[in-house]
């Protein structure tokens, strides 16, 4: 479980995150949703310590790396983290297979052959069998995302962070990625945090849904009860998507009938 307590973060002289309190449960897909610029990426990066929090702390099963002078706790926690960056952040000096193998090369004591087979297994899970030898410049946007996911799960993380894992993907691949993340989350009891503004994902895999608005935690619920919400901002957010707009409409009609 990850617990966020009174987290605030200022960037460029502006308070981007304001007093966020949040609990993220293991074995569930915890979604963070919100408009572009609402602070999702900053929240995720502050959680893993890429940005230093101005106030508050983040507890990973009770462990915090704030005020950790020797970086020991930080290193320990980060070894248990897998992260998918919004832009993929693939190492462009390495081909696909080496990208996925990178964390294994760094941290595991497996033989080279075992590492290769583990990396291939991860690539197969994201439907990229046979892409081993490609260089990252030969990948499409969606393939990059999938390689990034394969790299993030290679070390079997205890905490998985995905920043918009399916933005820019076609609906079918999107769905595949959602299903995959949700599956590994349940299988291994991972605490998964997903930033998204895809309402499809919200409804499908939103075990918990946390709506961020202007850097504040505005609404909490899940993919099932989000349509019932009477929060004006979240209704506004949902109505921007044709899918949820229609669903909302049907939903209300049903209630009125």
């Amino acid at each position, binding site marked *: 479980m990850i617990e966020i307590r009174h987290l605030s973060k200022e960037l460029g002289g502006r308070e981007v995150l304001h007093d966020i309190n949040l609990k993220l449960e293991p074995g569930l897909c915890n979604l963070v949703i919100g408009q572009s610029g609402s602070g999702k990426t900053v929240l995720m990066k502050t959680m893993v310590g890429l940005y230093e929090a101005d106030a508050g702390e983040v507890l990973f099963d009770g462990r915090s790396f704030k005020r950790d002078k020797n970086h020991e706790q930080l290193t320990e926690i*980060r070894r248990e983290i897998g992260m998918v960056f919004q832009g993929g*952040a693939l*190492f*462009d000096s390495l081909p696909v297979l080496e990208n996925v193998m990178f964390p294994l*090369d760094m*941290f595991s004591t497996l033989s080279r052959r075992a590492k290769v087979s583990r990396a291939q297994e991860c690539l197969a899970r994201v439907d990229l069998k046979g892409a081993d030898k490609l260089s990252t410049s030969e990948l499409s946007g969606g393939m990059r995302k999938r390689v990034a996911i394969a790299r993030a799960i290679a070390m079997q993380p205890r905490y998985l962070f995905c920043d918009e894992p399916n933005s820019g993907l076609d609906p079918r691949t999107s769905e595949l990625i959602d299903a995959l993340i949700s599956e590994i989350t349940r299988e291994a009891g991972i605490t998964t945090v997903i930033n998204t503004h895809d309402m499809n994902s919200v409804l499908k895999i939103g075990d918990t849904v946390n709506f961020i608005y202007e850097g504040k935690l505005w609404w909490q619920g899940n993919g099932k009860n989000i349509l019932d919400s009477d929060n004006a901002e979240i209704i506004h957010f949902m109505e921007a998507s044709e899918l949820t707009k229609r669903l909302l409409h049907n939903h209300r009609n049903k209630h009125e009938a």
Partner: protein
Amino acid sequence: MIKAIGEYFLLLQRVFQSPGNRKLFWKQVLDEIYHLGMDSIPLVSLVSVFVGAAITIQLQINMDSPWIPLYSVGFAARKAIVLELAPTIIGLVLAGKIGSHIASQLGTMRVTEQIDAIEVMGMNSASYLILPKIIACMLFNPILIMLSIITALAGGWAAGVGIMHMSSFQFIYGLQSFPHNFDLVYAIAKTLVFAFFISSISSFYGYTVKGGALEVGKASTKAVVNSSIAIILSNLVMTQLLM
């Protein structure tokens, strides 16, 4: 400026801290030697041959006097090449080539979040990325400088004999007269210091880029300019101290 220097030393401190994990270190060093060092061989040879030739021609013209023995041209060319031309001029050439390469590579890794990705795995990205570059430059630049000395002397000989019609014997006699081994030690010592400045300063500008592709370009320019300044200033200090 003061702030940048402070940040530079903070980064250096992280570079030499425990790396968090250091597997495959020597493989990385070899890769860097290949990309930074081997790749510079043609440029270094080309520049050295021509500068060595030009220096010899200058010396020959300016020392054309019955009071100066003929072999002095060879002797003076050797001194100039070993003491200043090879270490300092080639140091500046390498600051341009290696410096811009390092800064744009690390800068691109920064803006595409590759450095964040390494950091988030629980590694010390500064040490992981920068230390192999520093070590590679300090190992390989002395070899480049030796190469530069040899090719510059060869260029000098070719120009002296081929263009200025000196006698080959006189030139080589000059090269060999008053041997002074400390000159070579001095050249290597300077090269090591310059190699450290080039690799660490360019790494600093690349590693700390904020923004996008435009900033990567600017960082690359700053890397070259500031490594060159560091080379010239430290050259002056070392000349004072060591000679």
